[in-house]
């Protein structure tokens, strides 16, 4: 067994590795990451994950639900650290997996992968507590500076790769497996519901709102205006014969008023601490919101952006979907703006306090149309200004969401002394 495999085994057991090994690991990781562009290209199939926040035991649950590395390809959209009790183990494990299986796992940067934020939200203190010095925190922060800012998933299938899964509610098992746009599974791998592509209109909305949701979900938490938890049930994205799901842009936060094309992201100088403002900051801090155009963010960094901004960006860049994390959503995922953007959240019962479920998003390979070649502008110059006259939006790729609850309390080995004042007393 190589040292790396040993380190992986040790971290999987939630035991930190020695400082010297961390240093070596971070060095190797940096060498690897330095080669990546600001926007990494990733081929489907891939499983996209949102915030982890040091909830190590829930990360293990994620791997149980989504499949282990390297069997499943993963894309993590940042915020590995802070808030949870095991930021260190979680981040180092992901980093080890990255070094061990560089083509199988992609890590991009979240707003918490920053020196300043980690000193407020726990990662710094955790390193100090676990190693007695800030060295390990420093090594990790150096790696943060090299993480990519986004990823572009290519070749995601319009159709979901079929899986052999039972229905949670057997009476639903006659639901048509054809032309499924969204499939929702629970942590036991049972299908909770399927949403066909050609939905839309009111009759489907009522059908969607009857969707069984994950056991711990409660509807009142995140009012799902239009239908099933997380899904943009008003979507009318169906109907197109196009077999490609189109490219999917993954970023931690969202868009920036300074960025109108993916190429502009590629031109940023990312190898630095996350600045307080500017394009790089926005990509990591912004949120979609029900507004027109741009708005000020209540977070004090980044911006709010409305459906029109997403629509315009997606058209210009030939995207079918933007996938982002950053915001707690009680149902684990939430599609907005006619399914042109989705929030994926992967930290169940966030901060051991919020009572939410988590989700991961699987995109299938474009298998239905094997001869299909991705658009030639795969990497650079995807959008060279010469926009196709096609006014139709690209149909979204087939999306399979798996939702899961927090790992059982006894398995997560809560520290004996719980931090006080989680609540107002």
């Amino acid at each position, binding site marked *: 067994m190589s040292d790396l495999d040993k380190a992986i085994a040790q971290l999987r057991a939630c035991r930190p590795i020695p400082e010297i090994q961390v240093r070596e690991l971070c060095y190797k990781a940096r060498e690897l990451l330095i080669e990546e562009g600001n926007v990494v290209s990733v081929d489907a199939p891939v499983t996209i994950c949102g915030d982890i926040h040091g909830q190590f035991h829930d990360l293990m649950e994620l791997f149980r639900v989504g499949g282990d590395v390297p069997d499943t390809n993963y894309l993590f959209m940042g915020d590995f650290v802070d808030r949870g009790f095991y930021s260190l183990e979680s981040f180092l494990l992901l980093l080890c997996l990255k070094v061990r299986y560089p083509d199988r796992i992609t890590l991009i940067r979240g707003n918490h992968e920053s020196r300043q934020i980690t000193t407020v939200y726990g990662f710094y203190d955790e390193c100090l507590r676990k190693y007695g010095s800030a060295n390990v925190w420093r090594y990790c922060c150096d790696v943060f500076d090299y993480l990519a800012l986004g990823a572009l998933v290519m070749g995601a299938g319009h159709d979901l790769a079929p899986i052999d899964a039972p229905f949670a509610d057997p009476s639903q098992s006659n639901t048509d497996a054809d032309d499924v746009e969204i499939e929702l599974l629970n942590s036991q791998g049972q299908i909770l519901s399927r949403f066909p592509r050609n939905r839309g209109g009111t009759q489907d909305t009522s059908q969607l709102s009857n969707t069984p949701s994950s056991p711990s979900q409660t509807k009142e938490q995140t009012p799902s205006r239009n239908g099933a938890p997380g899904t943009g049930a008003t979507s009318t994205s169906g109907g197109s014969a196009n077999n490609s799901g189109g490219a999917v842009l993954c970023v931690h936060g969202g868009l920036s008023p300074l960025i109108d094309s993916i190429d502009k992201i590629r031109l940023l100088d990312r190898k630095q601490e996350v600045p307080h403002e500017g394009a790089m900051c926005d990509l990591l801090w912004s949120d979609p919101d029900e507004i027109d155009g741009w708005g000020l963010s*209540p977070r004090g960094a980044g911006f709010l952006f409305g459906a029109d901004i997403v629509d315009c960006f997606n058209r210009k860049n030939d995207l079918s979907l933007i996938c982002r994390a950053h915001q707690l959503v009680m149902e684990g995922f939430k599609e907005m703006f006619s399914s042109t953007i989705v929030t994926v959240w992967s930290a169940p019962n966030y901060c051991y306090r*919020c009572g939410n479920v988590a989700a991961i998003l699987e995109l299938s390979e474009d298998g239905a149309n094997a001869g299909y070649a991705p658009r030639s502008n795969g990497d650079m110059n995807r959008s060279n200004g010469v926009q196709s006259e096609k006014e139709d939006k690209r149909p979204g790729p087939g999306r399979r969401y798996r939702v899961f609850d927090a790992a059982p309390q006894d398995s997560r080995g809560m520290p004996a002394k719980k931090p006080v004042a989680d609540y107002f007393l």
Partner: protein
Amino acid sequence: MSTIPHLNTLRSGRRGPRLRGRRGPPHAGSEDAGRFDEEDVEIGKDRIIQQTDQDASSSRMSAVSLGYLDDPFAKTLFPAGEQVPKRYPIINRGTYVRTKAIDKLVIRFLETNPNEQKQIISLGAGSDTRFFRLCAGKYKVRYHELDFESNVVPKRAAIRASEELSRMTLPSDNGSTYHLHAIDLRDLTNKSPPVLPGMSTEIPTLILSECCLCYLPPDTASSVIQYFTMNIPGSIAMILYEPIRPFDSFGKTMVSNLGSRGIELRTLKRYYSLDAQRQRLRLSGFKEGQGARDVYQLWESDEWTSKDERERIEKLEWLDEIEEWKLLASHYCVAWGWRGEPFEQAWKEVEGGRTPDEQRDDEVG
């Protein structure tokens, strides 16, 4: 701690022997573990409830040290030599909102007919500094603070040790007095309840319960309120600060997390919403008016938190936890109700009525 094997069975229905570390063995040195009975469990529970003031106090210290609140007395009442705790930004913000909202109601009361003699009775006052911040030397007010002896003793000692605070607690010419009562509030519900020395039954009285009555069994909490509304026939009002909304998933998690620390929020299910709180106050005799707002509303409303203040607070710390803040803050409320003057005049204009989004609560309740 093998001397307390019966702990879990006695605390039926709840998980986790958290009590253990906090209270230590019930009869240190005693060989008779079997004598560990219900009463000991109650004492253990009480101790945990008493210690909630340490949370309140250190949250206050954290908010003060970062500039959220201006409170020179917090430090004096904070255990000497203890490190100033650092709380997360959302906790600091919540501490700020709750303190300011209650202050606002209290100040409006004091400022209405400012020369009139008034009375404030603070239940479970713990290390609260409101008397020193708002009242001492400024208004004609009899100020009573009630808490368990174990919390009153250190507070009294801290006041004595400080020249400034000692001076402030001396009776002043204008009729201001400060009274610190070591009392278990539940004793007020006895058949022949104790008399609170210095309590007037004749002057307009404000009862404060900042996260206190919620720890009592609901009927006991009602009886405590009744003790005051019966004894004081004239003008009387109440301000409550409490958790709400136990039935959604955040609320459920809150109940179970606090439960694992041995903290039971016993009135929470009965007074589960803003409307349930208003109704509670109405039925308790505060008939003339009732209001309630959750902490998130208090933060967002210009009337409660001015734009300037919001901007000032937002600059103090980066608050990345927007969704969490909304969740947490919507699970706590300030509720108030009154009868008679000067309360009617002081509070009738304060926004606290039902809002459309309270619909949600009806569906859950």
